[in-house]
């Protein structure tokens, strides 16, 4: 081929069109082609046209869906709060990655949960019986699940009368409410109650209408009224199975 280190003739540059277009030249040869194109009066249409050929090779590959957790991993790396996003096909609560995503979110929230828990204990003397029930559940060392998402954060605890959501959440628009869901391993959602934060007090304590057994994920959505299946993305999630 060419003698390395000297300027290329037009024919020598053209002979490298394929390698040039595919990025398969050594640095010095690529620089020599660049220099030739920059100084030569001829159009060198073949050389210029070769650039970008790789896009066809890539587009001809059979698409390969990534694993379910990769999107959440990327979004976590760039700092976005994790919330499942709508996509064509299955609704979010029927997708297999919901429990795994919830697990990842819960792990990230654990430090904040501990701090919040301490704060909660300090407030107990002034709270009502329902809050005392929550405190009793927390103090007894019973299982608690951290709940987090774009609407805020909190914990699921097992009280004397069943599971309770205790959460610090954003207020909802007038006429809207939070709806709680338990979702089983097949992605079937069951509505287990609604709540609305009282004005000026974002701390919510809401009793779930069913026990957690048999369900894989707890979630909360914002709805216009109580519905039979979520119509929007979850704003709070928690995994209910060990992952």
């Amino acid at each position, binding site marked *: *081929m060419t003698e390395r280190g000297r300027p290329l003739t037009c024919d020598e540059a*053209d*002979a*490298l*069109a*394929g*390698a040039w*277009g*595919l*990025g*398969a*030249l*050594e*640095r010095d040869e*690529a620089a020599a082609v*660049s220099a030739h194109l920059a100084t030569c009066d001829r159009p060198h249409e*073949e050389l*210029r*046209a*070769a*650039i*970008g*050929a*790789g*896009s*066809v*090779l*890539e*587009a*001809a*590959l*059979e*698409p*390969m*869906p*990534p*694993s379910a957790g*990769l*999107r959440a*991993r*990327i*979004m976590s*790396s*760039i*700092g*976005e709060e994790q919330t499942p*996003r709508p*996509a064509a096909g299955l609704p979010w609560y029927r997708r297999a990655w919901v429990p795994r995503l919830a697990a990842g979110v819960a792990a990230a929230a654990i430090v904040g949960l501990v701090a919040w828990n301490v704060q909660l204990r300090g407030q107990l003397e002034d709270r009502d019986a329902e809050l005392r029930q929550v405190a009793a559940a927390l103090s007894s060392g019973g299982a608690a699940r951290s709940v987090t998402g774009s609407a805020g954060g909190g914990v699921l605890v097992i009280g004397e009368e069943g599971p309770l959501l205790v959460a610090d959440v954003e207020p909802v628009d007038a006429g809207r409410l939070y709806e709680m869901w338990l979702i089983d391993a097949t992605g079937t959602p069951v509505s287990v109650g609604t709540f609305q934060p009282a004005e000026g007090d974002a701390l919510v304590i809401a009793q779930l209408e069913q026990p957690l057994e048999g369900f894989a994920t707890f979630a909360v959505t914002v709805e216009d009224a109580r519905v039979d299946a979520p119509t929007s993305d979850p704003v709070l999630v928690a995994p209910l199975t060990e992952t």
Partner: protein
Amino acid sequence: MIDPDRDLARRIRAGDRSAVGELYDRHADLAMAVAFRVVQDRAIAEDVVHDAFVAAWQKIDRFDGERGSLRAWLLTIVRNRAIDRIRRGRSTEDVFEIESRGELRTSANPTWEAAVRRLDGDALRAAIASLSEEQRRAVELAYFGGHTYRQVAELTGVSPGTAASRLRLALARLRANLEGGP
């Protein structure tokens, strides 16, 4: 009609993280295919795709929409990072430096970009299948193997001139097929 990728690039530049998620929804399957084709390992391919999307978020100011599509730019990052994974010793330049000079794939080229927009995967595969086996092998080694044409020559037991000629003829034939020519 607004080009969705152009709008995504604008939003990413503006710091809209959700736009990265939308970019992922549009192109992750192909990004995975490119990464896997190079590294031949699913877990490593996912690491590559992860790093590429994070890089796209961090380096969006290096993307020049006048020289090519956001998709092409993203896949260039994927391919280069994948090749770096399997051939850490290669004498590569930073992908963004190469792109900034317009030497690689993100330079505007109507033939290839138009073909990708116009044809589906089957049609593109048929065009590639029209190449001779030697040409396809040389293209594969160069593009997805990250080898220079001189290395392709060594790997296939031919002279550097023959390897360069195979690559040149392969692209000429591919271009003619995609343009509907002979």
